[in-house]
């Protein structure tokens, strides 16, 4: 009986990130005790909304990272889609057309990423870095370094509207998270990400069209980044190149803290969501407890490093893995 329980427990901790759940519980509990205004619905809504753009983008990034890649360009794509839709509105374009075009452009950027990674046989890091710089430049060109306004009021539905009492962005996030989570786990096409992430060679030998999948994964990720940009623009009814500075690193950190591995083959949507909840809570500690926000960055960095250290330690302990230097190296194509 006891061994059965042990087996179940170790399987559970293999499947879900027990450590993270405990950490979330601790932070949540501490906040609830120390700050009376924390546990209110409106406050929790604010906490969640502060992280919703990262959350949506993290969903797509999860699949990218599981497949062994990385996408830095989302950090530039998010403000770019906000600026682009703003530019369209300033050209007196109608809402449906403006939104559709922006979404299409976002997908196109992702396709470009995938295409270049395939053709140039280069690491996704450097390709998406180049795209990030390029798209960032496009943002500067379109916005002329300033902020764009002149959004139609109806557009604010995206960011400020509600569906059955839940803010629309959060609603979108839930829907995406559930659907993508199920697809990643059950649908054969999405699940390929794990095989490709473990070994592209082996995946190819199994008949998986790695190049095709890459095109899909990066355009899907860019799509979500574009959506995040639209939502952000809608919330503020403005757009500027300073939106979401550094967001790509926060998004990647969210996925990694959740338990995915940069070398690919590990991770899941539920883990990412846990990572998101954890970081959103940590993020809100400062406002809740009235701590100076200067410390935000320091705590964020410490939390990220601690999270991966612990996760690594637990994994090594559990599987008794032989450590090879290859594991830590940046790329293991």
């Amino acid at each position, binding site marked *: 009986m006891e061994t059965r329980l042990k087996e179940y427990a170790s399987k559970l901790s293999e499947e879900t990130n027990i450590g993270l759940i405990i950490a979330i519980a601790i932070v949540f509990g501490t906040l609830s005790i120390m700050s009376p205004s924390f546990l209110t619905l409106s406050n929790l809504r604010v906490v969640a909304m502060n992280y919703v753009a990262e959350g949506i983008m993290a969903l797509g990034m999860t699949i990218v990272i599981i497949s062994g890649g*990385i996408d830095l360009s989302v950090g530039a794509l998010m403000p770019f889609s906000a600026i682009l839709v703003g530019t369209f509105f300033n050209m007196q374009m109608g809402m449906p057309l403006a939104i559709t075009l922006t979404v299409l452009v976002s997908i196109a950027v992702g396709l470009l990423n995938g295409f*270049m990674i395939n053709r*140039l*046989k*280069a*690491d996704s*890091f*450097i*390709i998406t*870095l*180049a*795209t*990030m*710089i*390029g*798209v*960032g*430049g*496009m943002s*500067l*060109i379109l916005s*002329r*370094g300033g902020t764009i306004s002149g959004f139609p009021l109806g557009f604010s539905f995206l960011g400020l509207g509600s569906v059955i009492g839940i803010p629309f962005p959060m609603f979108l996030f839930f829907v995406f998270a559930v659907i993508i989570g199920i697809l990643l786990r059950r649908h054969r096409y999405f699940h390929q990400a794990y095989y490709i992430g473990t070994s592209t060679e082996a995946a190819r030998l199994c008949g998986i069209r790695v190049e095709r999948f890459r095109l899909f994964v990066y355009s899907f990720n860019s799509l979500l980044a574009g959506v995040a940009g639209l939502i952000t623009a809608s919330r503020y009814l403005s757009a500027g190149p300073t939106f979401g500075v550094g967001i790509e*690193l926060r998004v*990647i*950190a969210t996925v*990694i803290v959740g338990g995915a*591995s*940069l*070398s690919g083959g590990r991770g899941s949507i539920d883990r990412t969501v846990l990572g998101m909840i954890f970081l959103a809570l940590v993020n809100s500690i400062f406002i809740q407890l009235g701590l*100076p926000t*200067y*410390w*935000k*960055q*320091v*705590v*964020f*960095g*410490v*939390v*990220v*490093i601690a999270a*991966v*250290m612990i996760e*690594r*330690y637990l994994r090594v302990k559990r599987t008794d893995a032989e*450590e*090879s*230097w*290859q*594991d*830590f*190296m*940046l*790329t293991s*194509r």
Partner: protein
Amino acid sequence: MQEALRILKEKREAQLILINLVIVVLLTIFYPSSFPNPGNLRALGVGMVYDVLVAVGMTYVLILGGLDLSVGSNVALTSVVTTLLLAKWGIASVPVAITMGLGLSAAVGAINGAIITSFSLNPFIVTLGMMAIARGAARVLSAGFFITDLPKSFEILGNASVFGIPLQIILTLVIIAVFDFLVRRWSILNQAYFVGTQPDNAETVGINVGRVIFVGFIISGLFSGISAIFLSSHIGIGYSQFAGGMELRALAAAVVGGADFTGGKGSVWGTFLGVLLLALVANGFVQVGLSAYWEQVVNALILIIAIWAASFSEK
């Protein structure tokens, strides 16, 4: 002639020298009064100093097969601490403050290296965390303000000139030349190429891979520190928002210079030429009068071309 063409096709440094020469020639022909102007050249050179130093440190880490995202924040933190030492924390001696600042930047690198090697963690996430920690620490220490009231002797370093050439530029060239020599000749540093391509084999052959990586990150931190000293000295302040985004610029320059994420590739002079190329392009924009907003797009294109060129010699 055949030989020359072959070298051109295979060596990134040669390609970059050629491209840089072409740009210099073109700019001199079309803007003879403003480009070769000593004031312009001086500004060009000085602007390069900070990026070159950080990029060279980054190159070494890339050769190792790693990555250091914390360099920009390291620069900021070192600048803040060094200037605080001089302005508020009672260190009267400039050399002492500089040494302590450099020690701090090296320590940041050491912490990176220690965490990465002891836990076998991916340098991306560790240096990402450190980037946040160092930048946050810089803000906390400086409370967001500039740190001023620096002793005049400190500002000499960043502002003096020898025969009209800024001291910073001369020192930077000397430092990277020495480093390049060491990397080529000193096996302890040269091992980085082996470690970067086949770390497990390197371990088998008896190389202390952990130590090489650890030292590599210290080197990167140290270069960030040197850059910080020059920067603070030149502008005369310590500032927690210095070097924002510098890590990605350094990375791009290193890759243009021939370094690669898979490790085992790259060189000091290649990186220097990469930084020079990007600086010349930026300067070219100023000469032509093009909006600086297009600069980023052009930089991205240059980066893509460099990657594309690398995929050829990959054969």
